[in-house]
């Protein structure tokens, strides 16, 4: 289980790049389906650890944030000519699936795999 990181503390510091004061990283997020109004169509589970990505992608983008070549280029373009392009964003690099028991469009209750539901790792994209 991951430690919960308090998002509140820093949200006022976020700039246009969508990041906080920390470098791009995976953060805790437990989603309760009831909070999304989804208890009407999802039977199980009640919720899941979805995680999300957040943080800065600013120069220099080190190896540790898993940046693509395009993100490296875009970071430099933004640094030299900020009006041409924004900083790259902190976004999921790997996602994994989650099984859900739910009502489908025809009213049947089925168990299916929902791909790309959980953030496994983040990077600058």
């Amino acid at each position: 289980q991951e430690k919960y990181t308090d998002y509140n503390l820093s949200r006022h510091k976020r700039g246009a790049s969508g990041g906080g004061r920390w470098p791009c990283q995976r953060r805790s997020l437990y989603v309760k389906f009831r909070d999304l109004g989804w208890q009407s169509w999802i039977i199980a589970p009640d919720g899941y650890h979805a995680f999300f990505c957040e943080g800065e992608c600013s120069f220099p983008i080190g190896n540790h944030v898993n940046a693509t070549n395009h993100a490296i280029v875009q970071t430099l373009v933004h640094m030299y000519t900020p009006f041409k392009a924004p900083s790259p964003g902190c976004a999921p690099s790997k996602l994994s699936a989650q099984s859900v028991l739910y009502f489908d469009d025809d009213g049947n209750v089925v168990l299916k795999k929902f791909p790309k539901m959980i953030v496994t790792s983040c990077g600058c994209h």
Partner: protein
Amino acid sequence: HPFEPEERNSISFHDGTRPFPSNQLPIIDLEENPNPLYDPKEEDLEYKRLRRLLGRDFDRDYMSTVRPLEHVLHRNGTLDFKIKKGRPKGRRPLFIKYFGQRVYTGETQKPIRLKLKREDRKKVQKYLWSYTHCPVFHTWKDLGVRFWPRWIREGQCFRGKSCSIPPGMYCQPSDSMRITLLRWYCRGPEVGTNCSWIKVQYPVLTECACSCS
């Protein structure tokens, strides 16, 4: 029908307000709320009533209310390799039928051929058919008290070694069916209230095939 989903409206949700499911297998285990108030009680588990509720969907081959003998004997599962006339049972794949065609080696050289007696060619075909066959591995699984019957027979693909020549491809899920079970479902806003048995469809892998992942 034990449950009328009154809350559910019938529009299609493929407008990006709901996630999209896939038919990908194998299925990942469902995460259950550990609160025992969501479990059915003794009196909710009366065999006769549940058996009648499930009706024709009760499939002895894929479900069991008690731990099956097969699970006692072969806890880790059994390989379902059906053999007929020295090769896997079922329809002959096309690549077996056409095995032995000429290999093109360029404009300036003759193609390479396989010169074998009819009998021997048949032997090689049968062998390749068996070698590349992906049998299903069956295991019994306990879904817990919130499903009825709680034991189901799942399929898995055997991935111990490569199934292709040259090696590189592995046995992958290629077909599935849905079995219908009962699920104890509590709709009440408070924990463990307004509960009933509803029919649910559970996917079970039925076929594997040798392919790139």
